[in-house]
């Protein structure tokens, strides 16, 4: 990759051009410096990671339902790679099926976003790469009696 070493690298795996457009826009608006690569399906994502095994992106946003190689298959493949722990995978879903989330979580995904992604969500995940995010709701208080 030609991006400077300190700049965050993001890989978006998404087959819908509209969703890629919305993602790029949200990234622009979130105010974080990051360079984005897009893979149009799972097979292209695998190909990209294989040829960049020495400098894999820190963040990957992964659609689940895609032609050729789907998101689950990408996660499965990724689990067997030496650079697995260098990438945080956030799943982009459309369906919100709990079963899909459970499966993706079991395969190593650390976050879930129901499309479309917002610039706030993107910022949160980008910041979480440097400082792991809290799971508690940011604006709510939970009191234990």
């Amino acid at each position: 990759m030609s991006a400077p070493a300190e700049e965050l690298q993001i890989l978006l795996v998404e087959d819908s051009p509209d969703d890629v457009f919305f993602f790029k826009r949200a990234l622009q608006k979130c105010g974080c410096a990051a360079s984005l690569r897009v893979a149009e399906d799972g097979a292209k994502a695998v190909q990209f990671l294989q040829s960049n095994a020495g400098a894999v992106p820190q963040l990957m946003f992964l659609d689940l339902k895609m032609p050729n190689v789907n998101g689950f298959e990408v996660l499965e493949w990724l689990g067997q790679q030496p650079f697995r722990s260098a990438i945080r995978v956030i799943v982009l879903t459309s369906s919100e099926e709990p079963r899909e989330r459970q499966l993706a979580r079991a395969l190593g995904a650390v976050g879930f976003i129901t499309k479309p992604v917002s610039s706030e969500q993107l910022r949160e995940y980008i910041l979480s790469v440097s400082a792991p995010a809290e799971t508690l709701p940011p604006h709510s208080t939970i009191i234990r009696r």
Partner: protein
Amino acid sequence: MTHTITNQYTAHSGGDSSPDKVNILLVDDQPGKLIAHEAILAELGQNVVKATNGREALECLLRNDFAVILLDVQMPEMDGFETAQLIRQRPRFEKTPIIFITAYNTSDIDKLKGYSLGAVDYIFLPVIPEVLKAKVTVFVELARQTQLIKRQAEHLAFHYQEQARKLELIQKLNAELQEANQQLEAFSYSVSHDLRGPLRSLKGFAEILLEDYAPQLDDTAQSYLNKLISSAARMEQLTRDLLEYSRIVREDMKLERVSLDHLLGEVFSMNTVLQSSGVEVEVDRHLLPVMAQPTLLSQCLSNLLSNAVKFVRSDLKPKVNIRTEPHHDRVRIWIEDNGIGIDPAHHKKVFGIFERVGNVKAHEGTGIGLAIVARAVQRMGGQYGVESALGEGSRFWIELPAAPEEVTA
């Protein structure tokens, strides 16, 4: 002459074959002895059939089953042993018990001892009525038991057949149902993905249009765009809620011990409505565990909590209180809010699908959330309800089986 008597008896016994009576065959060449023995056996209340020689005895055997055959050893032409041998040659009578009636002489007893075919006994002449009755009774009882078992076996066989038929039908229906379920699942998935994709684009581009080109649009154009966006948002929410509702049916219904503390943590971290509401949630320190399907229960709690923060006066900070209480062998989970409350007249209605009551316009919602709660709780074998009045907040409850005490090793 004696032949006619025999026929009369067989004909008679054939016509009066009550299911509880068994047949006894008396074989003797002397009519006097036949009548005497018959008189003794009459007290047993069974059908007595008489034959005066071996051939007649065989004829009778071909027509009826017998509990026992009483065979006189000393008969002209074919004696008792020869007759017995002929009887035993036929597989059907292989096991029919035979009692030989014989005079007390050594040669007969020797023969009897050597006789080893099937159930055999003997009685000495002159016959002592009590001995005859006792010995015959044993075989009559045996025959009756056998008959009973046979009838039960037939009955059982019929039942098994019937059950096998029903099982086959159930399996067939199950297969059909499973296929229908799979089709429903595929349908739901395509609704969730293929229908929501275009909808997302529609809403997304309308939003961008409004954001980037607002200065070039007059107020009317902007209001149209806003209407478009809110309609798309509403449709998005509808598809989401309908999917959740249909998911309840597709979910495997395996109840397990669920710790509410853990589950609520998950619900809080997943529910964006809750997170952005600024709600103050008070959770009781000691929540009782319940038997539930975790995914369904978390959906119920999530929906109830969303409702709790949604239907609150805009000038109030939403507050929710969660606690449990034992209710016989069940646990009642209470979710209490400081919201606008529900008129008691509408308490039943709120759990129906697409039912919204009160000031709908001011509060978002598709009217499916509580229907999901109702259906999910029902599927888990529980109950649900609400206590509320207008302006007093709502206290929703769901009741599920209590989880047994955890075994500590």
